[in-house]
């Protein structure tokens, strides 16, 4: 992928293979006095899809939002342990959060395009990286929309409001918006939970396509979706990481009894 790289990245070929590695080292997280994550340790390999599953309130979204430090905005939060992107702590005081968030894209449960045109939505991220000339922006917008397989549907109405699209289309525009920054990691927070089955299927196909280029972590309540779309699965329960491993192993021969109980639908 020839990138209009907005931030410095490891340049050598050897390093390129590990770009997008996420590693949690005994990572704990608190909202005030309430502990939301307890000593999470896991290593997500680059260019893979990892599903985070578990009942509501188990900490999976907290973990996701810790990776791009979106949780920092909530007053009274603190953490222990470490979270690393490409072996560099995301909590390193000298790290620029803005640059981090450009490397780690995020898509939310409820699609949230800005009340602007489709074009402006996708061009939003590149613009802050200082890309101002129309030709480059046009190219980035088209490429991003093509990558989310929505280009043909919207190419004639790029200058109309993104809010005029269907829910599934809006969500794909939001994914394109995240991709326009050329991130190496994409965080998906239940991206399809509010969509109809056919839109959900399209998002899943998209995830499958995109993992060739970047690391994807997807929070989902839908176990079938986790089984279908991911290569690795992490099962969270009451703030603990109960089990993490290849999806097939988690779903067919879980090591932990709690994982099995959740997967077979005995709770959660």
């Amino acid at each position: 992928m020839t990138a209009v790289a907005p931030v410095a990245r490891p340049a050598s070929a050897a390093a390129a293979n590990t770009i997008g590695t996420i590693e949690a080292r005994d990572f704990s997280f608190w909202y005030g006095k309430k502990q939301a994550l307890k000593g999470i340790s896991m290593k997500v390999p680059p260019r893979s899809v990892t599903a985070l599953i578990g009942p509501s309130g188990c900490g999976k979204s907290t973990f996701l939002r810790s990776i791009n430090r979106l949780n920092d905005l909530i007053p009274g939060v603190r953490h222990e342990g470490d979270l690393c992107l490409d072996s560099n702590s995301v909590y390193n005081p000298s790290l620029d959060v803005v640059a981090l968030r450009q490397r780690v894209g995020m898509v939310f449960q409820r699609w949230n395009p800005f009340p602007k045109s489709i074009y402006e939505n996708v061009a939003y991220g590149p613009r802050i990286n200082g890309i101002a000339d129309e030709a480059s922006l046009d190219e980035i917008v088209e490429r991003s929309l093509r990558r989310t397989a929505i280009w043909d549907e919207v190419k004639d109405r790029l200058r109309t409001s993104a809010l005029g699209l269907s829910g599934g289309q809006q969500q794909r525009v939001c994914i394109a918006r995240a991709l326009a920054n050329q991130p190496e990691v994409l965080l998906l927070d239940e991206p399809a939970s509010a969509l109809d089955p056919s839109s959900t299927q399209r998002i899943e196909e998209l995830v499958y396509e995109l993992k060739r280029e970047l690391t994807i972590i997807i929070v989902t309540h839908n176990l079938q979706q986790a089984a279908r779309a991911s290569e690795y699965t992490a099962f969270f329960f009451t703030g603990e990481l109960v089990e993490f491993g290849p999806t097939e192993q988690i779903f067919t021969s879980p090591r932990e009894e709690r994982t099995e109980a959740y997967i077979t639908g005995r709770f959660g």
Partner: protein
Amino acid sequence: MIGFTYLAAILATLPLVLILAHLVRKGASSLSLAFFTHMPGSVGEPGGGMANAIVGTLMLIGIASIIGLPIGIGAGLYLAEKKGTPLASTVRFLSDVLNGLPSIVMGIFAWEVLVRPVRHFSALAGGVALGAMMIPLVTRTTEEMLLVVPTSLREAALALGYPKWRTSISVVLRTALAGIVTGALVAVARIAGETAPLLFTALGNQFWSTSVREPIAALPLQIFTYAINAYDEWHRQAWAGALVLITIVLIISLAARFATRSRFGAPVD
């Protein structure tokens, strides 16, 4: 019960309808081009207009807006971004108190601070008094408009790597802009007709003046002066002035309605 609410709904709009009808009946006949372009005539002399008062009112609105809008919008932004802090709670409470302050008190205060020390009335003092009245109105509407901007939009911008301050300005403020403009115009409409704060500040002026350091005419003051006089001609002029004033307010209100129709519609949820 439904019948009662139906009746109440009609009664609620009745004063406006009656006032408008009355103003048109009494004032329309005195309206002419001269009313807008001529100065007030001498006592007993027919004709003459309120050109100075119309310009004066527009100037006072201008001065008030220059003071009231930036402070009000800035304070509203602060309240919305820092909603939990002690300073925000204090400012919010004091804003509400200021909002309920009788306008005559504002006028006396402006007189004490801006007129008495320099020993003469001025347009500036009137504009400041009106601007001070605008601040709490604009502050609270700005805050409310910013708070209805969904958190998801804010997060979307932050997740794209927008710095916090830039998110506040380019996403939150932009999304709420239509609402803030409406709030600002409503505040302008509200102060345009204020009389009490001007009695001790702008004072009124029978002559042409556009100096901010001199007393200046204003429609509400002119209406007041003419209405309490005994001359029929002045009474008619007062009615016409009232009609012009209410038309200005109506135009501003319509502009406010128009401004809310944003090109890309309201944000989802």
